[in-house]
């Protein structure tokens, strides 16, 4: 008995921020240069009053429309992976059970993780299914990073976008999800962090006043030390991939497609070259989406299948890495 990814769907907010508009805001960068630096031409921005749980409701409605054979009453577990939960309590997954009209017999948990969130959620879902706790898990992953980016932070605005993915993980005879390799190094937390929020740094009147021209930045401010994050990625991702292959008894040649967290075009290309992965086996789709944090991997898997880059039976190595620092990877069979 094992688990497999049965279906994926995703939702992007309507509002588009393209490089031409960014270039008007930051005239020192041309649209072409922004693309060259980031690999991104457009990103989607959640509406002012749209938080990730709202996106989750829209994305799930779309999922059930696209997959009419999936019945709500068959869902026995709900996992919501985001770094922007609704409240300190209750868990957003509980609120979503009700909003989505899912059975009250299901289990519902939040996993507040970012770049590695899809891998960690998949790891939990796989464990729940293989231990016979659940059979059909609705796994929602996404974020609204643009809400914690200061309007004057050109680097982050060029990279990040908002999205929500819905993945159905179900029980199967032959497992489609391999062993997991993972790790954590909290000493990297200051290099990729949301400051000025929650328990560690309660929002103050001074903070709200200081950022009043940016709407108060009440959700906190996302800060990234780009060079440190690149160094972390260069040091951690190649061994992560190597160990994941070893665990699966596979070689690089056995993998049909590599789908990494879509961090930035620059980081992905440096990693691809370092690991000597042929371009045709390396999927990227951030050109019109950007880095959507926990949503990047399911968005990429969906697009890879749609574009015929991943076919039924293909082995795909998926790897998530970033904020935490936290990382993880596995090999899935499409």
């Amino acid at each position, binding site marked *: 008995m094992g688990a497999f990814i049965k279906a994926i769907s995703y939702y992007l907010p309507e509002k588009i921020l393209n490089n031409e508009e960014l270039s008007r805001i930051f005239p020192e960068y041309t649209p072409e240069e922004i693309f060259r630096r980031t690999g991104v031409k457009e990103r989607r921005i959640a509406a002012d009053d749209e938080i990730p749980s709202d996106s989750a409701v829209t994305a799930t409605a779309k999922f059930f429309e696209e997959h009419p054979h999936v019945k709500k009453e068959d869902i026995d577990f709900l996992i919501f992976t985001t770094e922007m939960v609704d409240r300190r309590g209750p868990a957003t997954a509980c609120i979503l059970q009700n909003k989505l009209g899912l059975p009250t017999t299901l289990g519902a948990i939040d996993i507040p993780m970012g770049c590695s969130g899809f891998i960690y959620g998949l790891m939990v879902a796989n464990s729940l299914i293989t231990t016979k706790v659940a059979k059909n898990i609705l796994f929602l992953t996404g974020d609204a990073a643009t809400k914690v980016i200061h309007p004057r932070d050109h680097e982050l605005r060029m990279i990040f976008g908002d999205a929500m993915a819905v993945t159905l993980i179900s029980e199967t005879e032959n497992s489609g999800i391999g062993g997991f390799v993972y790790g954590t190094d909290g000493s990297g937390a200051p290099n990729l962090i949301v400051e000025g929020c929650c328990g560690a740094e309660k929002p103050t009147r001074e903070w709200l006043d200081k950022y009043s021209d940016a709407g108060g930045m009440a959700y906190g401010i996302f800060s990234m*030390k*780009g*060079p*440190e994050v*690149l160094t972390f990625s*260069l040091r951690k991702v190649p061994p992560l991939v190597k160990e994941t292959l070893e665990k699966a008894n596979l070689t690089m040649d056995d993998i049909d497609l590599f789908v990494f967290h879509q961090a930035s075009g620059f980081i992905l290309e*440096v990693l691809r070259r370092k690991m000597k992965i042929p371009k045709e086996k390396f999927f990227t789709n951030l050109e019109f989406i950007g880095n959507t944090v926990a949503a990047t991997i399911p968005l990429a898997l969906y697009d890879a299948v749609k574009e015929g880059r991943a076919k039924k039976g293909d082995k795909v190595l998926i790897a998530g890495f970033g904020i935490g620092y936290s990382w993880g990877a596995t090999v899935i069979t499409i």
Partner: protein
Amino acid sequence: MDINTFIQQLQGEFEDIPAGFLKPETKISDIEGWGSMHALIVIALIDTEYGVTLKGDELRKVSSVQELYDMVVNLKNNPE
């Protein structure tokens, strides 16, 4: 490895730096428009060419091209 090759490699990565501008004594802060993107490119280049993955704060400590080169040589010969 030698510093002239190192300078040529750096020069190859920076389209916006005029040919011949980079010398061992050139201060990194004197490179026009030096910013975090340049830091990313330098870290990636040194990782690819020399197998040394510099940290951002290590890169910030060096002031000249010569110092950067010396640090790479030192880290390559004395891996952590």
